[in-house]
């Protein structure tokens, strides 16, 4: 399973409805760019938990883990290792 590609597809299909797909760079802040809002973050968390069979703990709900594709890939890699 290509984590990076799956996450990117999920974000494109759910949060980039009115945006050009080229704007989605792996390192940009999803919150700062307005790609994901607060509801979107929760959708993203649910997607990660269901797709990778992991449980995200309360103290892991921080931008350092969730706020860019790079951060998400690293975080999921750590959780599934």
């Amino acid at each position: 399973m290509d984590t990076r590609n799956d996450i990117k597809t999920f974000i494109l299909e759910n949060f980039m409805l009115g945006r050009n797909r080229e704007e989605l760079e792996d390192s940009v802040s999803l919150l700062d760019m307005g790609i994901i809002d607060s509801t979107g973050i929760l959708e993203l968390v649910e997607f990660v938990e269901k797709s990778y069979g992991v449980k995200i703990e309360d103290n892991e709900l921080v931008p350092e883990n969730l706020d860019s594709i790079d951060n998400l890939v690293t975080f999921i890699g750590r959780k599934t290792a």
Partner: protein
Amino acid sequence: MVSSISHRGPDEFGAYFDDYCALGQARLSIIDLSTGSQPLCNEDGRLWISFNGEIFNYIELREELEKYGHKFRTRSDTEVIVHAFEQWGTQCPERFNGQFAFVIYDRKNRSLFAARDRTGIRPLMYCRHGDRFYFASEIKAIFCDPSVPRKLDFRGLDEVFTWWTTAPPRTVFEGVNELEAGHYLTVVNAKLSTHRYWSMQFPTEYDRDRSVDSWAEELHALLVDSVRLRLRADVPVGAYLSGGLDSSVTTALIKKFTDTKVETFSIAFHDKAYDESAYQKQMADFLGTNHHQVRCSLDDIAENFPSVIYHAEKPLVRTAPTPLFMLSGLVRQHNFKVVLTGEGADEILGGYDLFKETLIRKFWARNPDSAWRPMLLKKLYPTLPLSGARARFYLETFYKAGLSQTDAYYFSHIPRINTTTRIKDFFTDDAKAAIGDYDSIASFGVDLPKDFDRWHHLSRAQFLEVRSLLSGYLLSSQGDRVAAAHAVEGRFPFLDHRVIELGCRIPPWHKLFGLKEKYVLKKAMRAELPKEITQRVKQPYMAPDSNSFFQDKRPAYIGEMLSEANLKKSGVFNADFVARLIDKCSRLSHAHLSFKDNMSFIGILSTQLLLNRFIEQYTMPEPLSVEVFTVWKDESTL
């Protein structure tokens, strides 16, 4: 023109003509049923008026004007306006306690004077086209002259997708203007100018020694008097009863003035998440009212939405006006023309969550790295269906926006603006180019009171909420327009200017006591309302949004309005982007759809309906028969 707005006043039709001016009137007869016909003139026929609304203190003003020697021929409030204009000139609106929009034509010098009430309860639109000026309660009347261009104003649309409304004088139609609340207008020698005569003014310092009980006592006395004035009518007056505090206050106060049962009206939703009927029944039983209810389903919202857009004449980002459109229909079915409602209490006395959020965000902004300051947000949403940490994370993410902009005049509204503006992501490149670098966020910051920067953060938020959402959306799209659609007039005791001015003087900490909203109002009404109502957690009025349009029996117009061909013809929204949004809305249940997606869908659908009805497929209304009009034609010289 009159026929296009005959829904507002189906009781009588009148017209006045001379070589320079024509005035028309569709009257909803409420005061002086027998002699209050319009247009109406003064004793010598020099001043002619067309008026929509009520001057509640007309009896007192008439007595005062009679002392100055003015002679009256009718018992109407309309005639009081004419004489008040003779007596006090352009300062006359300052004397009126009411909800009004009127135009006075001076035959002698061929000038016009028009005015609108302080908070914009009654609408007044205008347009200059060629050498003509047009005035009307609704834009559709102006469009009855086919030579008037009907074009979308992209900047107006950009404002709606920032603030939920346009900033007057702009509307979403190019060249058509709205007179701003608290303003009057003159046309002299073909030159039109507007002037502000009233604005909310908050102090920069407060009386810290005066007790909340003392403020509550004054507020109670004023509310009683405000309701007394708003019961002046020659037809029966009913009341909306939402189950919340504000309409319970107004209904309880009506009871002071009548021995008969009050007739109350409310909305119930099939969807339990929005339904407040248990509280409505509790309050109706407590007050002993004859209660009437209209039940609103998802299908009802979809079916009635096009009519709501036709009446609102601007795009919406929520469906909430639709159930109120149905409610006014229920009122009319029971042969009522007038209802009192609790609108305005939240803005004037600190009821909205937005105000609490503003104070928490301001407190948080002083130490943005604090872990516990934003936890106060969780107190605002105790019923959020998320576990503790997730709820906190959600709220922090949402509300930390703009934390560094505490000096911005719109600081209080940044989270709402950030959500609403996402709709603009769906604009076509052409639409974006038409808007250019126009700054909609600045549009409500024009002409701010001189001490605004020194006001308390709650006061600034209140001011902005009244200027934007109350005036342009709650009193308009969700107020006058959907009530007038069924010839119903709403009256608003909390928007008596004396109550507003008192509300401004009451210190912020008596309005929001900690995070307890409308504290001084609850104190004022504690003897008259049950604790279950005064201590109830506030439930904001909302209606089901986009899922209303994705049910099995969805009306055909939805597919037509959002078809690729139609979207491309309108040229406002990118058809590919809209297709993705529709796909997401149809895939996900309502519970999983964000505010942003919901607002985007409603905003796009309502814009397409508006463009279709007023620009692309525009049809003239059937003219009324000439026989139904009472006509005055004045050819005499003065």
